[in-house]
């Protein structure tokens, strides 16, 4: 199983039936592949739809039905079009149950940095700051390290996306929960040892006596 698939499958199992979920561009988008339709989860795309469906068959695209990355999508039965103000009203008003976002860094306070690398990459925050500030649960879905360097760090060196503690960090190695007293290692990926996770993490990790393997369904 690829690192991406481990992350996506584990995040998928976090999503509760009947909830409203926003998946960030990139790795998080792929989480949808592992959600059974009968769970009644609705996906929001912040550019203006609640009830986003998968990519349409070739030749059946509509140029006015796209996701926040500009890719063609479909609308599930029961979908609703929303304009940008209502779309972010859902996000900022506490109506979005879960946002799944990628991360550049997460630190011991559970703070996320994912929108800018000063001097190098200044794409803008898009909806990320609203999503992290507003969603009920914020799940970070990312590789545990980047080019061998830990992304879970004592304190973010990059500019923060929000001053809010995220709910959960899911990587290809581990599930980590930021708590008031720091980061707690909750699960490990199949076949990965706790020591490997600790070694790949520069932040302080609280390690409970028992760290179960992820259930990847």
């Amino acid at each position, binding site marked *: 199983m690829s690192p991406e698939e481990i992350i996506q499958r584990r995040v998928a199992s976090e999503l509760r039936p009947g909830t409203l979920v926003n998946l960030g561009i990139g790795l998080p988008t792929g989480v949808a592949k592992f959600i059974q339709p009968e769970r*009644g989860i609705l996906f929001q795309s912040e550019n203006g739809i609640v*009830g986003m469906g998968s990519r349409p068959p070739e030749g059946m695209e509509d140029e006015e039905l796209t996701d926040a990355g500009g890719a063609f999508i479909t609308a599930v039965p029961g979908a609703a079009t929303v304009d940008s*103000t209502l779309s972010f*009203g859902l996000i900022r*008003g506490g109506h979005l149950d879960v946002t799944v976002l990628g991360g550049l860094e997460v630190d011991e306070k559970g703070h996320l940095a994912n929108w800018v690398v000063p001097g190098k990459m200044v794409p803008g925050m898009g909806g990320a700051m609203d999503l992290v500030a507003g969603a009920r649960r914020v799940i970070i879905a990312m590789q545990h390290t980047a080019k061998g360097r830990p992304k879970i760090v004592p304190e973010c060196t990059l500019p923060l996306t929000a001053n809010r503690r995220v709910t959960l960090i899911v990587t290809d190695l581990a599930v980590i929960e930021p708590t008031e007293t720091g980061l707690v290692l909750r699960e490990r990926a199949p076949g990965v040892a706790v020591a490997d996770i600790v070694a790949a993490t520069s932040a302080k990790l609280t390690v409970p006596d028992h760290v179960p393997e992820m259930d990847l369904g």
Partner: protein
Amino acid sequence: MKQAISPQQAAEMIPDGAVLMIGGFMGVGSPHRIIDALVDAGRKDLTVIANDTGRPDYGIGRLVRANALRKVIASHIGTNPETQKGMIEGRIEVDLVPQGTLAERIRAGGYGLGGVLTRTGLNTIAAKSQRVIEIDGEDWLLASPLKADFALLHADRADFVGNLVYELTATNFNPVMATAGATVIAEPREIVPVGLISPDNVNTPGVLVNFLIRREAHHVA
């Protein structure tokens, strides 16, 4: 998918003392069947946030007559002398808010905003006890967000996802209140199967709605 429940079941969910937003403008676009069920259930000490209190024995006026209200936050009570009487006798606390400010305060509650900065009411007695914020040399009233335990809505049409469609001037406060109730209960004229409402025709996405009131039985197949 949303449960379609009876007005009585809705009333049972709502305890005495609850804070309610109720859609409608002089009863047009109000959830009349839920209101009746609240009256029948003998609810007391309710706080109602609404544009007005309807007319005597009509719309929210039925709750006034039933002595169900302890407090009203509204823009206008002039069409219901019983509300005015209750206010003068001290039975009902009435907080009068300009209509546009009322709509924005509800929206601020539903959209996660810290308040509303408005010129409406500035330097009038309606602004007393409200904070004034100076921005670039101009004064603005700061009005606080409003939220409710329950938002009780009327709609023209719904599907079982909870998507709502409103009609004409029965729209009024219903869509904005849908964003600001912890529990949102909508009373549509009809409920259609999922997929029959075009995404572009949905006014309130179903994710905001918790319960639908099922229509009265006319026809059993």
